[in-house]
C-alpha cells in the first residue's frame, strides 16, 4: 500500500512558513547554480557562434590570439595563393587579410576604460561573415576614416554610437553604421577599412588571414600545407575551433567557481531541509504510529517522507530556475583574459541547464530528507503511538 500523494502535499501546505523558508533557501542555491551555468553557456555560445566551420583563421605560430599575431605581406600573399580557397560570386578569392588591434575606450556608463578590438576588414571580410548585418547607417567607404561598430560596442562605449566619433591613432573616426552580428563575438568589435588601419597604426603586416575553404572537408590538407611550408611561420585553425579556444579559460573559470560555490551553498540548504524534515517527523510521531498500525509498511512511510522532501526540493528548484530564467534578458560585458579584449554575452538557458538544475534541487531534497525519513520508518508502532 502506498500513502496517498495528497497526504504529502497537505503536510507541506500545513506549515506554510517553514515550507517557504526551506524551499526558499534551496531556490536561492538553484538560482546561483543555474545563473552561473547560464553565464558559462552564454559565453561559449557567443564565441562558438562567432566562427563558421568552413572558414580558416591563420595566425603566427604560437601567438594564440589575433592581437598578438603578426603576418607580413609576403607570407599573407603566399597563403592567399594556396589552392583550395573558395571563390566568391565576383570570381575573387574569399580571403581577408586583417589587422587587429586593441584600443582602450571609456565605457558609456562608468567612464572607465576597457579594451575594444578594432579590426581592419576588406570587402571579402564581409563576404566571409554573412551573419554581420548593418542595422543602422551604412558600410564605411574604403579609403576613408569611417568605421562601423558592433551593437554591444555601440551601446556600451562612449563615442562608438552612430554618427559619433572615436579617436585613436591620432585620428578621429566617424561611426557611420552599427552592425549586428547575431550575438557573436563580432558584436564587441569595431570594423574599418584594412588599409586605412594599417596606415593609421603604422603596421607593415597583418594580424590574421581568414579564408573560406572551397571544400570544408579538406581542412586538414590545407593546414598541413600551411604548417609544412618553410616560408611560413604560421598556424591554421578552423574558425569555430579558434573562437571556442578563446572562450575556454573564462568559461572554465566561471563554471568551476560557480559549481564550487553552489556545492558549498547547497550544504546550507540541505541542512535546512534536514531540520525541517526532522521537525516534520517529530511532530507527526503519533500519525506515523497510526499509519503503521493501519497497515502501511515501513517502506511506505520512508517513501512518503522522501517524496515530501523531494517535493520541497522540486519547489525550490522550480522557483530558483524561474528566477534564473529572467536573467536571460541581461547582457554582461567583461574582459576575456585570453584576448585581453572586452566581450559581451548574455545568460543562455539551455535544456541541459534546466535538467541539471532540477536534478541538483532534487538531490538536495533527497540528501536532506533521507535521514529523517529513515528515522520515521524505523519507529516502533507502540512507541510512536505512545509518544503522541
Amino acid at each position, binding site marked *: 500500500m502506498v500513502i496517498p500523494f495528497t497526504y504529502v502535499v497537505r503536510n507541506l501546505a500545513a506549515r506554510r*512558513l*517553514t515550507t517557504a*523558508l*526551506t524551499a*526558499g*533557501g534551496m531556490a*536561492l*542555491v538553484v*538560482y*546561483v547554480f543555474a545563473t552561473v551555468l547560464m*553565464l558559462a553557456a552564454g559565453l561559449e555560445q557567443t564565441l562558438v557562434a562567432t566562427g563558421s566551420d568552413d572558414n580558416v583563421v591563420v595566425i*603566427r*605560430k*604560437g*601567438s*594564440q*590570439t589575433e*592581437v*598578438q599575431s603578426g603576418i607580413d605581406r609576403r607570407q599573407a600573399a603566399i597563403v592567399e595563393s594556396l589552392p583550395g580557397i573558395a571563390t566568391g560570386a565576383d570570381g575573387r578569392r574569399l580571403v581577408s587579410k586583417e589587422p587587429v*588591434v*586593441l*584600443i*582602450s575606450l571609456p565605457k558609456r556608463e*562608468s567612464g*572607465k*576604460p*576597457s*579594451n575594444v578590438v578594432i579590426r581592419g576588414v576588406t570587402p571579402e571580410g564581409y563576404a566571409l561573415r554573412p551573419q554581420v548585418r548593418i542595422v543602422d547607417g551604412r558600410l564605411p567607404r574604403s579609403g576613408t576614416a569611417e568605421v562601423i561598430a558592433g551593437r554591444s560596442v555601440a551601446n556600451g562605449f562612449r563615442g562608438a554610437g552612430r554618427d559619433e566619433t572615436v579617436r*585613436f*591613432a*591620432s585620428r578621429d573616426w566617424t561611426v557611420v553604421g552599427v552592425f549586428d552580428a547575431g550575438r557573436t563575438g563580432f558584436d564587441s568589435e569595431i570594423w574599418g577599412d584594412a588599409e586605412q588601419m594599417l596606415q593609421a*597604426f*603604422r603596421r*607593415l603586416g597583418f594580424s590574421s588571414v581568414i579564408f573560406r575553404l572551397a571544400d570544408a572537408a579538406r581542412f586538414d590538407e590545407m593546414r598541413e600545407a600551411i604548417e609544412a611550408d618553410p616560408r611560413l*611561420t604560421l598556424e591554421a585553425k578552423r574558425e569555430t575551433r579558434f573562437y571556442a579556444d578563446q572562450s575556454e579559460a573564462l568559461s572554465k573559470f*566561471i563554471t568551476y*567557481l560557480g559549481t564550487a*560555490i553552489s556545492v*558549498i*551553498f547547497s*550544504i*546550507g*540548504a540541505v*541542512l*535546512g531541509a*534536514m*531540520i*525541517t524534515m*526532522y*521537525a516534520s517527523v517529530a*511532530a507527526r510521531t503519533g500519525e506515523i504510529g497510526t499509519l503503521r498500525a493501519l497497515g502501511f509498511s515501513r517502506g511506505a512511510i520512508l517513501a512518503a517522507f522522501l517524496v515530501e522532501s523531494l517535493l520541497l526540493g522540486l519547489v525550490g528548484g522550480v522557483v530558483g530556475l524561474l528566477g534564473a530564467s529572467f536573467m536571460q534578458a541581461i547582457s*554582461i*560585458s*567583461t*574582459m576575456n*583574459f585570453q584576448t*585581453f579584449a*572586452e566581450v559581451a554575452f548574455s545568460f543562455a538557458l539551455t535544456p541541459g541547464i534546466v535538467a541539471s538544475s532540477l536534478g541538483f534541487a532534487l538531490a538536495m531534497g533527497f540528501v536532506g530528507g533521507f535521514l529523517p525519513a529513515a528515522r520515521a520508518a524505523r519507529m516502533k508502532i507502540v512507541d510512536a503511538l505512545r509518544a503522541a
Partner: protein
Amino acid sequence: MVVPLLVLRNLFRHKLRTLLTALGIVVAIASFGLLRTVVDAWYAGANASSSARLVTRSSVSLVFSLPLTYASKIRQIAGVEGVSWVNWFGGVYISERNFFPQFAIHAPSYLAMYPEILLADAERKAFYTDRQGAIAGRKLADQFGWKIGDTIPLKGTIYPGTWTFNLRGIYDGADKTVDQSTMFFHFDFLNESVKKVYPRRGDQAGLFVVRLRDPAQAAAVSQAIDATFANSLAETLTETEKAFQLSFVAMTEAILVAIQAVSFVVIVIIMAVMANTMAMTARERYGEYATLKALGFTGTFVAGLIVAESLLLALGAGMVGIALTFPLAGAFADAMGTLFPIFFVSEETVALQLGAALAVGLVAAAVPAWRVARIRIVDGLRAVA
C-alpha cells in the same frame, strides 16, 4: 543566574537541530569570508601600489609600445626622480595552464624603484652579470620547484620562438602584499634579440614607471609627461600606479560584482534556514512562553529569551566559521597557485563575517520574538506545535 542557564538549556533542547543549524552557519560564514577574500585578491595589485610611482603607457592601449627614447625625456621633467621601463613578455612555460607574469625590466632602475622586492646581494650581482639571467618570486619558484641555476624555457606568444633564461635569484616580498609569483629578466636581452629579427620592433618599451620626488605632485607631473608627447606618433597616458592597477580590475568588474552578490546570497540562504529553526523552536514552546507570561514575566523578557538564544547560536557558530576561514583560505591559495599571487584574509573580512553572523541571529529571531511578545496568554497556552 537562572536566565542565561535557561537560554542555554533551551538552545540544547533539540541537540540535533541546533547542531545542524550551527553547521549551516559555520559553512555560510566561512564561504562568505572566502568569497570576500577572493574579491580582495583581485584588488591586491592596486592595494600594493605606491603613491610615489606613476605609470606611463601608450594612450591608444597597452598593446602599443612607446619608443625607448622617451625615458630620457621623462627624466628631464621637473619632479621626476627616476624612470624605468618594462615589457610584458607573455611567454608560456611548458603548458598554457602554468600561467604567470613575466616582465623584461631594466633591472638596476627597476629594482631601485621597487624596494619591496627583496633580493640577496649575491643573487642580485649574479643576475646583473648574466645577460640571460632571470629572477623569480619565492612562491613561483616553489610552485615549479625551481632552484638557482636552473634553465627556464619560455615559448613566446608576442615574441616568437623559445627563449631560455638562467634563474639567478629568488626574491621575497617585504610584506605579504608583494606579488611573489612574477619572473623578471633583462630588457636588453629581449631588445637585442628582437632587433636582430624584427629591426622595427626594437627599442620599444611597453610602459615606463616613473618615481616622483614628491607624491603630492602626481597630477602635475602626469600632465607634464603627457603634454611632452602630445601630438606625437606615440601619445602617452600617465596615471598613478594605483589608477593603473585599478583599470585592470575595472575590466573584469562584472565578474567581481557577481562574486560579491553571490557572497551575500549565502548569508540570505542561511538566514532562511536559521529563521526556520527559530520559528519552529518558538512554535513548539508557545505553551511555555505563555506560562512565563502568566507568572508575571513581561513580553519583552520572553522575546529577549528568543533573541538571546538566536544570537548565541549565530555568533557561536559564526566564530567557528571565522576560525575555519583561515585554514580554508590557505588551502585555496595553495590550490590556485600563481593565479591569485596575494591571498590572505583581511581584518575587514573578519569584521564583515562577524556582522553577517549578528545579522543572521537578529533577523532569525525577529518574527518569533515579535509573535511571542504579543501573544495572549490564553492563546499561547492553547497553542499546539
